[in-house]
């Protein structure tokens, strides 16, 4: 899954360790600058532009997947 690839690349986590309950803040490679890189990476990959208010509330992978559906991203 491309989404898991981006998470793995940005935060240095194995794809096999990612699930819907994965909390970004708890990943070893997390800091707020890396998270910003992650958001811009998602926007580029899926050709979307998150509204600030939408993306600020996302804390885990499951919530992110729901948000991506809202932005009509069908293939994760």
């Amino acid at each position, binding site marked *: 899954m491309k989404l898991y690839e981006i998470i793995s690349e940005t*935060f240095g986590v194995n794809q096999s360790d990612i699930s819907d309950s994965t909390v970004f803040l708890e990943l*070893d490679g997390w800091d707020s600058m890396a*998270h910003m890189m992650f*958001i811009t*990476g998602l926007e580029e990959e899926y050709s979307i532009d998150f509204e600030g*208010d939408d*993306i600020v509330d996302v804390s885990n992978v499951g919530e992110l997947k729901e948000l991506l559906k809202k932005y009509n991203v069908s293939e994760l």
Partner: protein
Amino acid sequence: MKIAIVQPYIFPYIGYFQLINEVDTFVFYDDVNFIKKGWIHRNNLLINGSKNLFSIPLIKSSQNKLINEIEVAIDQNWLSGFLKKIELAYKKAPNYDKVVELIKNTLTVEKTFISTLAIKSVILISEYLEMNTEFKISSQNFSDSRGLEKANRLIEITKKLGGDTYVNPIGGTELYDKDYFSSQHIKLQFIKPQIDTYKQFENQFIEGLSIIDILMFNSKEESKKLISNYSII
């Protein structure tokens, strides 16, 4: 007056410089824990049309050490190899000559720490781009606040600098609450980059690379324009 406080990153991506651009004073947060799988000591370049990671060699890196406690292990062999990699990747890029000098100036060092090297890379590029932001280093200028809880330390540093606004990357919204900052008389804002594409080689655009890539393919003025495109939440 706006303040940002961020871990030092080596040749970071454009969002880092957008944050620098937004604030009056940028504090390098070097006396916090190193992030082994993070972006303090590494980033991506464009090599043969793909994203390719480079990493500054370190001595005994650990998440139990502070960023300013980790020494780099750059020797002449590594440096020659890295510059060769840059040459092969970018020698046909329009601004190769100027940018490779910046890289050489950054990396030609005696024994040093990754914090010092990363800070040097950011400051040299900021100077090249004629950015007016003032820089400070947390371990040198704000060591007395080290024991404070995260948000409180950021607020303390902001106030010490005479700031009324703290700007964080948008990734920090889980950690920091606008109401709490407001109760401490500091406005909290978040920066959300807008990443514009630019011409690389004949490849499909690869985003999220080190500032090195942007500078290789864009003039100083074009780079400044790319850096100025973001929104504040």
